[in-house]
């Protein structure tokens, strides 16, 4: 079953065509990597899919209902997002940040209930951030921060989680840790995960589907093994690459 469908979507700002003619359907309970060079439109695509911006043309549907027909609140109960970097001048504790993930279910006047704390605790345990709960967000390392924001996304209990370059500033060990965590989340909750990645070996190892963008156009969308081939990578990134099949590592030459 497909949970996200995009039908011929376009996005332009003024005269600049940023995304052109994208159509795809993402199956429920899968991990899809979005790859492409800087400026190819990956972040814009995520924003469109979660309804923060509206396509100039075309239709996006989540669970067979047009994104534009969801209220902001309904949408927030369906999709949670982890952004590239969240910096704030204000010293929230880790627990406060994760608890904010319950906001989609709360009204203006309701306070955090026992249930909210319970879900918050579960999300933090699942992401290995429970021991950090009283730390200030700005005192954490990049990897810890990213795990906290993934905990926040989990705490929203949404079917879909989107992540924009969540591992961009992490070392290899922590990159793999985060990717393993995402796979585990996907398995346990049957979540649908969309993730913008630069590292093609991570994309190969950890995703079911790959959506490749170039200059605002969708060049490929298919099962990982069909997209990440030597020829495709060459045409996408204008580099030579070699895939070492047994351990899925891609080496640029």
């Amino acid at each position, binding site marked *: 079953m497909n949970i996200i469908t995009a039908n011929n979507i376009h996005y332009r700002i003024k005269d600049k065509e940023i995304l052109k003619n994208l159509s795809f359907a993402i199956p429920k309970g899968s991990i899809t990597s979005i790859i492409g060079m800087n400026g190819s439109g990956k972040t814009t695509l995520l924003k469109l899919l979660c309804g*923060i911006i509206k396509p100039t043309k075309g239709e996006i549907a989540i669970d067979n209902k047009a994104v534009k027909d969801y209220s902001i609140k309904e949408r927030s109960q369906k*999709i949670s*997002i982890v952004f590239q970097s969240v910096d704030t*001048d*204000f*010293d*929230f504790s880790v627990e406060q940040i994760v608890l*904010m993930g319950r906001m989609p279910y709360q009204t203006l*006047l309701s306070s*955090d209930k026992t249930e909210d704390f319970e879900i918050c605790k579960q999300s933090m345990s699942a992401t290995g951030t429970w021991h950090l709960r009283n730390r200030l967000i700005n005192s954490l390392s990049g990897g810890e921060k990213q795990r906290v924001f993934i905990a926040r996304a989990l705490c929203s209990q949404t079917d879909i989680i989107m992540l924009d370059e969540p591992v961009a500033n992490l070392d290899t060990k922590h990159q793999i840790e985060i990717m393993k965590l995402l796979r585990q989340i996907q398995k346990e909750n049957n979540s649908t995960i969309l993730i913008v990645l630069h590292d093609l070996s991570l994309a190969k190892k950890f995703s079911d589907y790959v959506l490749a963008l170039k200059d605002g156009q969708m060049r490929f969308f298919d099962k990982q093994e069909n997209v990440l081939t030597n020829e495709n990578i060459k045409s996408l990134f204008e580099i030579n690459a070699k895939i070492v099949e047994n351990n899925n590592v891609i080496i640029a030459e």
Partner: protein
Amino acid sequence: MTKHKTKDFLYYTLLAVVVSLLAFVGIRFGSVDISSMTDADKYILYSIRIPRVLMCIIAGSTLAVCGCAYQAVFKNPLSDPYILGVSSGASLGASLAIILGLDSLLLGVTLPSFAVALLTVFVIMKLSQVGSRMHTTTLLLAGISMNFLISAIVSVIMFIDKEDMHKIYFWTMGSLSGVRYSDVVTTFVFSFIGIAFVWIYAKRLNALLLGDMQATSLGIDVEKTKKSVLIVSTLMTAAVVSCTGVIGFVGLVVPHIVRLLVGADNRRIIPFSIFGGAMFMLCADILARNVITSSELPIGSITSLVGAPFFIYLLYNAKKKLHF
């Protein structure tokens, strides 16, 4: 957060006691000793000191909460209605109302004051919205330029209308002398509604501090939230300024100290700032009236004497963090 609730209630009670004590000191001591309770003393007590102390509490709490609100909307711990020129805007509105003779009408000063304050905040918003994130420097420069512009206009007005000069001067300095019960009541109504409104939005303000997109993804209508909180707190600021003139730095100093003590959660910062603001203003007022026996210092100069060095210190810290 739930786990704080019982403990916080205790703190609030304690703070309420401190505020009451300071209010008592404010009523009891001043340039005239009223301990013998002659008719003249009674007049001073009921018609001058009590309304004045009440206004002090209302103004302090309101300005402190407005500071919290501005800081959340602009995502910047250095913003507040005074720094951004909104208070001056309100005082300009009040001055215009005076020279146009509107001050005898009901809300004849408050409404023009609100209108100009709102215009100021609108310009600040536009100026600082260059790019997606608002930088401290842009925001502060916008505030400084608005303050320059407004004080230039006020000087021109004072020059043209020499008769009302002292009245207008009063608005630029901030003073609690001559506060009447009617002022107390009007300001209280505006402030009570305004503070309640901002407090209800506290949880959303928390989310705003993580960024607009993050807040949107948590189900918040960011534009609507920002606009309504900003309009309401500007209205409160104008209500206070049109009675007391410009009293600076309360909205900067108080939330900042509260934040150091209770953390970043606006649901706790706002109630603590209500008490903190009242305490700060009461102390400033007691100083303003008792430091020199011959006359009274403008309260605005006292708060600025404390607030300006504090601001410089914050700026220094921010600079260290950003290396600019």
